[in-house]
């Protein structure tokens, strides 16, 4: 189980638009993340070291 915070930011490159110079923009949002990750056990197989990585 994991609980966390994710900040997701979208960057748009600066450009010369029809109305003139458009600066680089950064639109961001904060998110609360709740995750359950279940590892299917394989007791007959040797356990390998792992990290509880978010697949996403």
């Amino acid at each position, binding site marked *: 189980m994991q609980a*966390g915070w994710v900040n*997701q*930011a979208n960057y748009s490159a600066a450009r010369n638009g029809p109305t003139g110079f458009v600066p680089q923009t950064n639109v961001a949002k*904060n*998110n609360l993340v709740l995750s359950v990750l279940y590892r*299917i056990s394989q007791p007959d197989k040797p356990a390998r*070291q792992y990290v509880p*990585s978010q697949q*996403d």
Partner: protein
Amino acid sequence: MITHLSSQRLVGGLVRALLVGSLLVAWLAPVQAQSVKMTDPQWGSWLIATAVLPGGPKGWGGYAEVQTRTNGVMRQFFYTELKAGVSYGVAKNFNLLLGGGRYSTADYRDLKAGALNVERRLWQQLTLTQFTARLKLEHRYRIEQRWFRFRDDVVPTGAFAYRNRMRYRFNAFLPLNHQTFTDKTVFLSAYDEVFFNPRGPFSSVTACMPARVTSSISTGRCRPAG
């Protein structure tokens, strides 16, 4: 004489302070002028459920995941993901994965109208893990192929039906009560991921490479299976 020297030092200090201050202003001002930052004041939420089949003796494994996102915290639902992948452990620290998924985005104010966009995605992934002492580090490289289907009444200007994307994620894990991850391990994790779009989303400027950055800090606990 002493007073004269003190005055000189004072003037010298003032000049230096002004010079440093001016340089700072000159350095910061263009940054503010050339970049626009907007942060949604409202927090959203991501709810994720994943089942992982660890790689067996021959290295083959897999996973499946369902994910939903909301515009507010636990309300204003607008997004779902369904995805799965087959993995192959080339070596202890070296994993390959082929994945696929379906991603649906709707307007939370009008869910009855159906999804605004449904994306189907394939990706190829390489994960390198460093089990260095207590701190574990993971590097994930991903190449994605994305197919979009927009609702009939949704016509985003310059939208592409197909796009590629490249991603890199750096993830660090710190188990707190054990040296390695095992049952009942409490841990901290932080990651940063960059997304590169070789063709701009909804933009006619194809030379640009807009990017997305996702930063995360989380805490978790491993519970015994079964």
